[in-house]
């Protein structure tokens, strides 16, 4: 049925929600994967199993449940380390990409960014990679600068050089894949240029790690962040990685249980890495559930995931491009983009479009996608966005295309 390189029927069977019917018994077509993905039964059952059998607080108790829970929690750290090829002691569990970036801004940023310094971000960043830097640069009387986006949806790297040449840049922070345009950032090149000047680089990998194979050591960045819920994992779990030397010199972010070595009334010493940055009871069940998501993706193979998404995106772009009145954003070069398609259809506002096609069971996202700076750059108030994952099919794309045409007719375009 599918010319896909992965066995999509088998995969779909692992995702119970895909059997769900919405509005008047329409099968669900879930194309909102850039917002959050669905979870395979393996992940759902792993959380279930934790609570049924070995729920306990971790790290400090010696009883059997605590031992089992601690081992499972730390096993996830090992798996994440292997998945992105880093050391486990450099991996910090947080709530999500947003918290990871804020942790860096609060801790590393407040220690290292001074008055007159520059933090460089880009016009296609998610709010999570803009607003923390606005707060930091305002507090420090530093400057926030933006690398522009060209008409193909790619970063204008010459502008990076201009900033770097000022000699005042402390950090360049850039998303590895745009959550609106799908553009895959040439992060290697950015990192190379920054490191030549001794400038640190943060990679917001919220949209890349779920969809393409990433080797962080090869990438050679300094900070790296992503969210479990965008890659088959539970909500409430994210990962921050940073180089050991950097983490060792960073002040803690949140303070409290687990991150301390010794607490006295007037002075306190910190625990070893990575615990120094994990204060309080963590999201134990969901970190453990994330293990199953990593297993699932490794089992398929990230190369296969990417291949499948390329095929689906190509197919969708072809079909969409002939719809009357459609405007597609981003590069047509599939080597440079992931499975995210932003578009506008005539003068139908994306919210209206999403409401209409939701009636046909198709779930897409509409709005500014937490990227209002990019919306200003594109000179639109909003776009519609379809985004794919391993369980999506060409048949679903066909349903989506038919639904777009129905919207077009309803709006008489």
């Amino acid at each position, binding site marked *: 049925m599918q010319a896909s390189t992965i066995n999509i029927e088998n995969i779909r069977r692992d995702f119970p929600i895909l059997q769900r019917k919405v509005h008047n018994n329409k099968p669900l077509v879930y194309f909102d994967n850039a917002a959050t993905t669905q979870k395979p039964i393996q992940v759902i059952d792993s959380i279930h199993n934790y609570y049924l059998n070995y729920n306990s607080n971790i790290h400090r108790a010696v009883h059997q449940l605590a031992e089992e829970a601690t081992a499972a929690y730390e096993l996830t750290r090992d798996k994440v380390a292997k998945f992105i090829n880093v050391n486990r002691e450099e991996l910090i569990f947080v709530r999500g990409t947003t918290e990871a970036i804020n942790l860096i801004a609060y801790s590393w940023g407040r220690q290292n960014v001074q008055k007159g310094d520059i933090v460089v971000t880009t016009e296609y960043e998610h709010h999570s990679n803009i607003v923390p830097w606005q707060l930091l640069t305002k507090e420090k009387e530093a400057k926030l600068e933006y690398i522009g986006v060209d008409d193909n949806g790619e970063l204008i790297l010459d502008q990076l050089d201009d900033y770097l040449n000022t000699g005042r840049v402390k950090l360049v922070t850039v998303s590895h894949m745009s959550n609106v345009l799908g553009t895959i950032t040439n992060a290697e090149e950015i990192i190379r240029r920054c490191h030549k000047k001794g400038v640190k680089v943060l990679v917001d990998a919220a949209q890349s790690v779920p969809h393409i194979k990433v080797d962080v050591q090869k990438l050679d960045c300094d900070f790296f962040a992503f969210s479990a819920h965008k890659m088959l994992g539970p909500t409430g779990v994210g990962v921050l990685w940073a180089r050991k030397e950097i983490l060792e010199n960073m002040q803690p972010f949140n303070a409290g249980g687990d991150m301390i070595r010794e607490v006295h009334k007037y002075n306190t010493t910190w625990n070893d890495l990575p615990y120094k940055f994990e204060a309080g009871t963590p999201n134990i069940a969901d970190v453990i559930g994330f293990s199953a998501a990593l297993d699932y993706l490794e089992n398929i193979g990230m190369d296969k995931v990417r291949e499948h998404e390329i095929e689906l995106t190509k197919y969708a772009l072809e079909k969409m491009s002939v719809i009357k009145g459609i405007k597609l954003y981003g590069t047509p070069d599939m080597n440079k983009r992931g499975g995210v398609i932003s578009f506008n259809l005539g003068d139908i*506002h994306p*919210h209206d479009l999403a*409401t209409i096609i939701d*009636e046909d069971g198709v779930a897409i996202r509409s*709005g500014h996608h937490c990227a209002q700076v990019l919306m200003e750059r594109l000179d639109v108030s909003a776009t519609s966005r379809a985004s794919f994952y391993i369980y999506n099919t060409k048949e679903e794309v066909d349903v989506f295309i038919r639904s777009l045409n129905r919207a077009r007719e309803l709006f*008489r375009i």
Partner: protein
Amino acid sequence: MSSADIYREIILDYYRNPRNYGKIDNPDISKRDSNPLCGDELEMHINLKDNKVSDVKFTGKGCAISQASASMLTELIMGKDFEYVKKLTKEDILENLGLPDLGPARIKCALLSLKVLKYGIYSYLSEKLNDVTSADKIKEEASGLF
């Protein structure tokens, strides 16, 4: 409501050809707000004369529902007693739009114009008329809309 019910000819017409679109110089009431969830923006300007709405205009960016709702609201209040305008409810707006049964995801779009109107009246009452009691009451109403 099905989308065929929502996107009737009249809504699309108000969306594409909004009545009372524009600005007023030095208006008595002026307010801008946006919906943080979807980014829709709306600005409303009102002049009062003899305690009646003598002029009203709006500008905005957003979906068909929010823009048609705003435009229809301007028509509804034009020439009306200020007292009447102050008392407008959520139900009035939805009925005026002909969309009494909007679901939770979209009702905010329909009510953004009323929210902007109420916050505008709040500022007018508190800053220009110094009528803190009425002002606070209407602010309560505005913040309760969504």
